């Protein structure tokens, strides 16, 4: 056969092939630099600026400093000077910045659902007003959610002057009318009790949620933590009687899960427990707090008991507000007596009491205007929807619970074509001013610049009035017995106003660790009785009103009673909030806003899949979240660090470390969401949470042990012998010279070996691409932190960006970073200062003081990972004379 020979053509073919291989190359896209056309005064690109402002979430103002990066509000911090914050923030404060950037906010006015101009709105209102002029405003009605803004009150006065017969109504689904009514019974005036928990030697909480959703929660939390720090063997003791799981109950030394009638019964009826507890209260300067679910009479009784105890409480008098209840409004609407209804925020069509049927009545109103951030259920039923500006976009003012006023100042021009409540009111009062002028005018004779700088207006708190309660408040009305239905504001979504906030939706609820859902909470005994388990559906019926909801079993719930969190089952909240959970309002009436008796609860067919971030509630006898009796603190055992085969690594610079005080932690989740905001942590959605892929860098573990609920925040431990590091094949997880366990995202290839070998399972992995796609959401990102791509591991960094900023500033001035100069996001947000962070190499530092505490311990110390993050055990202060609870 002829042998293979090389021809010229074959050879050229080969050459061509080679050339083809040689082609093809890639490069990063080129970015432009965009300078300012007109440089803003004092703006320094790359250096964040902080502006003091305030916002109301639970009926009173929470002061805050908002971080702005080249004009973009990106992060909320607390305001130390503000009594409603004391430097801390609530989960809602933290999440509000995401609300600002929510791409689903309403963007333009709508008339009967169709896009319209503000001019048209002004014409419509002007025409209506023309009709009212001679009737003195007959048929002109206002509906407001909360009227704590002095400027708003001032405007309302003006309005009344202009239209004497105008009526202003108020509806807040989280109202505190029963407390007010109780005060009126006791003192003849609607006073507000201002407790000085710090001074209390013992606290009896009667279903009061003073750490959960009380207007003064951050302040109370701080005071409570102080009262709970042992001083010469003494510390405040907490008794909690509660009808629904709450942070208060979780912190209690003696906790009794009782339905509301049971609590009121307990309060009037004398029994052994009652006597023992009151003995303690009398001896140790005790104080009693009553919750909104209790009847006014019970509140009045509590006021009297406090007076008898000489409890540390003073009473303040808020300015009398000239508002009428929602019921009168609805009646007028039905009669067709309302010509123009202006609704300033709130969502009554969704959350007004069922028996009022607000939605139907609204149809009777010829011209209705609804101002709100979102085009929601109420907007859909009104003639006009007007987009409201976010509180970071407008001028206003607000009062803290104690009356201290603060200026709400904008950080950014309105993103969309919205107006503030004040600006909308201007259309009625007919003043030609802007929001700024209005507010400025309200505080004419105060140090305006100082107010803006400090975030508070000096000496604006309500004066405390010395009062003594009347003798007989009248007996407590007996309530319907049988199954009780308890309504509570959801700790994350409140009344539903945060339904479209992904951070809050995915925030694990303190007790249930549920995300993206509310649930009908049942006690284990009741669940057994009904034969339901987590996720089974139950039918709840009160008279003709009925509701089907998935059940969740928690030991913190009272027997024969079901708790229904409000704020869910929204139909027009937005893509994130729509259809999440169930709406409990259909069971809620005017008469029984918080607790309804005589309910029927039965098992229903079908199941619901919950997304919880913690599948196992018990510690299995492991020494994880440790606690010790106040009387046996010296018996606390500590693990000594063991020796290692290798010599230890020398650290001769800063040595960063963290200490978490389980005795102070109330499990409020502020740290979790503050971290999320600071570190560009994505939300992953319900299905991914179910798959076990949530991203929170600091999670709050919750364990049940006998009668106790234990919280344990778990961030990265920054172990000196980090198991995650030596298994990483590419040096993406390594230690830096200051002892930080750093994750180098751009080096990570995603073997997930580190997470496999992390005994604390604090590492989080980007199983999918979670980077923000929407320009608006991109604007919220913290420019100091890398946005992680798909396939990369991430975790707590001790806020390395903050450490770096402090180090650079210190190095520029040729000094060391001083103690307290670096504050991590979680630490800053914590209302109880449970989180301590600092430099171990500085002998006098706070962190060293904390680490010297005899109650300090390392988590899983026997593994000898030498964590830089350590814990201080929780202290339990049980009443020796009280066996149960």
């Amino acid at each position, binding site marked *: 056969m002829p042998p293979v020979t090389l021809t010229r053509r074959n050879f050229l073919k080969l050459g061509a092939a080679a050339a083809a291989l040689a082609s093809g190359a890639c490069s990063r896209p080129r970015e432009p630099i965009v300078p300012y056309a007109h440089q803003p005064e004092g703006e320094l690109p790359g250096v964040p600026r902080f502006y003091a402002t305030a916002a109301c979430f639970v009926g009173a103002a929470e002061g805050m400093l908002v971080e702005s990066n080249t004009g973009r509000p990106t992060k909320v911090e607390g305001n130390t000077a503000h009594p409603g914050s004391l430097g801390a923030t609530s989960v809602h404060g933290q999440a509000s910045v995401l609300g600002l950037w929510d791409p689903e906010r309403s963007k333009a006015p709508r008339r009967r659902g169709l896009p319209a101009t503000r001019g048209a709105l002004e014409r419509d209102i002007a025409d209506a007003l023309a009709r009212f002029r001679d009737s003195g405003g007959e048929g002109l009605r206002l509906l407001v959610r909360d009227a704590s803004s002095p400027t708003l009150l001032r405007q309302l006065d003006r309005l009344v002057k202009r239209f004497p017969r105008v009526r202003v109504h108020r509806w807040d689904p989280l109202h505190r009318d029963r407390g007010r009514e109780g005060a009126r019974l006791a003192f003849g005036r609607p006073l507000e009790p201002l407790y000085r928990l710090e001074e209390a030697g013992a606290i009896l909480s009667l279903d009061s949620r003073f750490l959960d959703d009380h207007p003064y929660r951050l302040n109370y939390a701080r005071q409570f933590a102080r009262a709970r720090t042992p001083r010469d063997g003494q510390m405040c003791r907490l008794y909690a009687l509660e009808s629904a799981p709450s942070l208060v109950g979780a912190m209690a030394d003696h906790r009794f899960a009782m339905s509301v009638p049971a609590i009121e019964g307990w309060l009037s009826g004398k029994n052994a427990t009652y006597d023992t507890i009151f003995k303690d209260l009398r001896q140790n300067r005790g104080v009693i707090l009553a919750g909104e679910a209790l009847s006014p009479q019970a509140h009045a009784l509590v006021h009297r008991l406090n007076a008898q105890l000489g409890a540390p409480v003073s009473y303040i008098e808020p300015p009398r507000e000239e508002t009428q209840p929602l019921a009168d409004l609805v009646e007028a609407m039905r009669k067709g007596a309302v010509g123009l209804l202006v609704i300033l925020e709130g969502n009554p069509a969704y959350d007004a009491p069922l028996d009022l049927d607000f939605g139907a009545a609204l149809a009777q109103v010829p011209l209705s205007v609804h101002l709100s951030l979102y085009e929601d259920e109420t907007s859909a039923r009104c003639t006009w929807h007007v987009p409201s500006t976010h509180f970071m976009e407008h001028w206003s003012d607000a009062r803290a619970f104690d009356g201290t006023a603060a200026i709400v100042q904008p950080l950014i021009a309105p993103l969309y074509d919205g107006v503030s409540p004040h600006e909308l009111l201007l259309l009625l009062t007919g003043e030609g001013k802007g929001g700024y002028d209005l507010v400025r005018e309200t505080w004419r004779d105060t140090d305006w610049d100082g107010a803006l700088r400090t975030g508070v207006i000096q000496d604006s708190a309500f004066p405390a009035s010395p009062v003594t309660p009347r003798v007989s408040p009248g007996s407590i009305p007996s309530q319907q017995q049988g199954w009780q239905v308890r309504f509570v504001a959801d700790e994350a979504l409140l009344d539903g106003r945060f339904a479209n906030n992904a951070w809050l939706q995915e925030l694990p609820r303190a007790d249930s660790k549920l995300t993206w859902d509310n649930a009908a909470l049942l006690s284990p005994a009741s669940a057994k009785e009904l034969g339901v388990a987590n996720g089974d559906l139950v039918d709840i019926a009160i008279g003709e009103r009925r509701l089907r909801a998935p059940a969740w079993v928690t030991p913190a719930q009272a027997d024969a009673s079901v708790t229904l969190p409000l704020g869910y089952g929204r139909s027009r909240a937005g893509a994130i909030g729509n259809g999440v959970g169930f709406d409990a309002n259909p069971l809620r009436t005017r008469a029984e806003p918080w607790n309804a008796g005589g309910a029927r609860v039965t098992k229903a067919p079908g199941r619901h899949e919950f997304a919880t971030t913690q599948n196992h509630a018990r510690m299995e006898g492991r020494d994880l979240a440790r606690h010790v009796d106040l009387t046996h603190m010296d018996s606390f055992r500590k693990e000594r660090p063991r020796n290692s085969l290798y010599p230890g690594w020398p650290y001769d610079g800063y040595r960063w470390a963290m200490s978490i005080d389980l005795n102070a932690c109330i499990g409020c989740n502020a740290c979790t969401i503050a971290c999320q905001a600071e570190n560009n942590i994505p939300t992953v959605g319900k299905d991914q949470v179910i798959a076990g*892929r949530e991203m929170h860098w600091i999670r709050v573990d919750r364990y049940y042990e006998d009668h106790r609920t234990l919280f344990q925040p778990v961030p990265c431990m920054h172990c000196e012998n980090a198991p995650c590091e030596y298994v990483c094949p*590419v040096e993406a997880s390594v230690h830096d010279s200051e002892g930080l366990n750093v994750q180098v995202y751009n080096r990570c290839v995603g073997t997930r*070996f580190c997470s496999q070998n992390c*005994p604390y399972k604090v590492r989080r992995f980007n199983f999918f691409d979670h980077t923000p796609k929407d320009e608006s959401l991109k604007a919220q990102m913290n420019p100091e932190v890398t946005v992680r791509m798909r*396939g990369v591991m991430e975790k707590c960094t001790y806020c390395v960006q903050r450490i770096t900023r402090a180090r650079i500033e210190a190095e520029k001035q040729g000094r060391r970073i001083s103690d307290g100069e670096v504050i991590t996001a979680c630490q800053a947000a914590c209302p109880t200062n449970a989180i301590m962070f600092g430099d171990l190499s500085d002998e006098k530092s706070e962190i060293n003081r904390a680490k010297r505490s005899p109650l300090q311990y390392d988590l899983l110390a026997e593994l000898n990972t030498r964590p830089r993050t350590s814990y201080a055990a929780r202290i339990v202060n049980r009443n020796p004379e009280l066996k149960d609870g």
Partner: protein
Amino acid sequence: MADVAAPLRRWSYGSVSDKIADIVLARPTHWLWFAAFGAASLGTVAFVGAIGWLFVRGIGIWGVNIPTAWGFAIANFVWWIGIGHAGTFISAILLLLRQRWRTSINRFAEAMTLFAAGIAGIFPILHLGRPWFFYWLVPYPNVMELWPQWRSALVWDIFAISTYLIVSLLFWYVGLVPDLATLRDRAASRAKRIVYGLLALGWRGEARHWARFETVYLLLAGLATPLVVSVHSVVSLDFAIDIVPGYHSTVFPPYFVAGALFSGFAMVLTLAIPLRHFFRLHDFITDRHLENAAKVLLACGWVVAYGYFIETFTAFYSGDEFEIAMVKDRLLGFYGPVYWTVLACNVIAPQILWWRPARRSAWALFAVSLVVNLGMWLERVMIVVQSMHHDFLPSAWGNFIPTVWDWITFFGSIGFFAFLFLLFVRALPTISIFEMRELVMEEKKP
């Protein structure tokens, strides 16, 4: 024991050469081969498809999560690499031990090793969050001035696996060269002659060449012997150097190597039995061969059983609360059924091989081998997943539920393996021809 090569007395140099060479060169292909090849091709397509989707969407399409961040990918990797071991064991260790019966099965066993190890090598890369950066695990001078982190067992893996692949390939290819020369000289079509001619490197069987050839062949066997032990030991270190109960165990290296041989020999039988059936190789792969393999299988089975026992025992003996909790969960927890299936497949089923007729019945062996393959895969899954889902902090506990993509990837990899093996059967001599000639000569000796 009767000589395994006895039937060879019927054969001559020429006939034996023709018989084996013709499987490749002449013999018309059996329709079953096409059927099998079609199925295997489908599997391959599925495999490639699943990988494509994985690269588009990310690791999230699998069931992995926190805490169980490793799932099928790693289990498949360990399983495949284990299967590879039998090939090297047969060709290297049995060669050193002068086991003549190895001669007729080492060639395809080595091929099996190559394909299995090759497929195993794919999984760690698929399993990366950012697979396009896999080369960062390899040391090379770069503008970041960074190197692999030598303390990581994954880097050890990279070196172990690639060394294993390369050495196995060399061993296999060196053994092939003389046979390629045979094919070159016997092929009818010119194309075939050229291809085999190139591969044969101009081998002409000169005496000095043979001498050097034999030396290097023997030395390669000597090198492959510690290598094969080291590879699965290193793989086991992926787990053993961790601190997580269920991973952190000193028994792992020997236990993994035994498990590897166990699954490997099972796979050898799974392949050998149909092979000799369809290509009428009963004179070369005799019942004695099968019986010996069966005995090895039984022995390995017992070592593995010992592994299971000692693991459980040490857990309780150590008194470590986490170890004990892990074992309890393994026996009675969410993944309990997996554990009991593993015991049934790997400990109970092989016991039938104590019975001689079972060892000599091809179909019984075939069945047992399949069961053991399944059992060993489940064992890998159990170790990788179950140890993780309940570790130190109960708050972090969770379950791994495989998704459809996990399954497609796994079965796809099997399809791809079959695809490669079927091609090999048709392209290269499945039995070492020159070594068979040696046997024939020895048999002819008076």
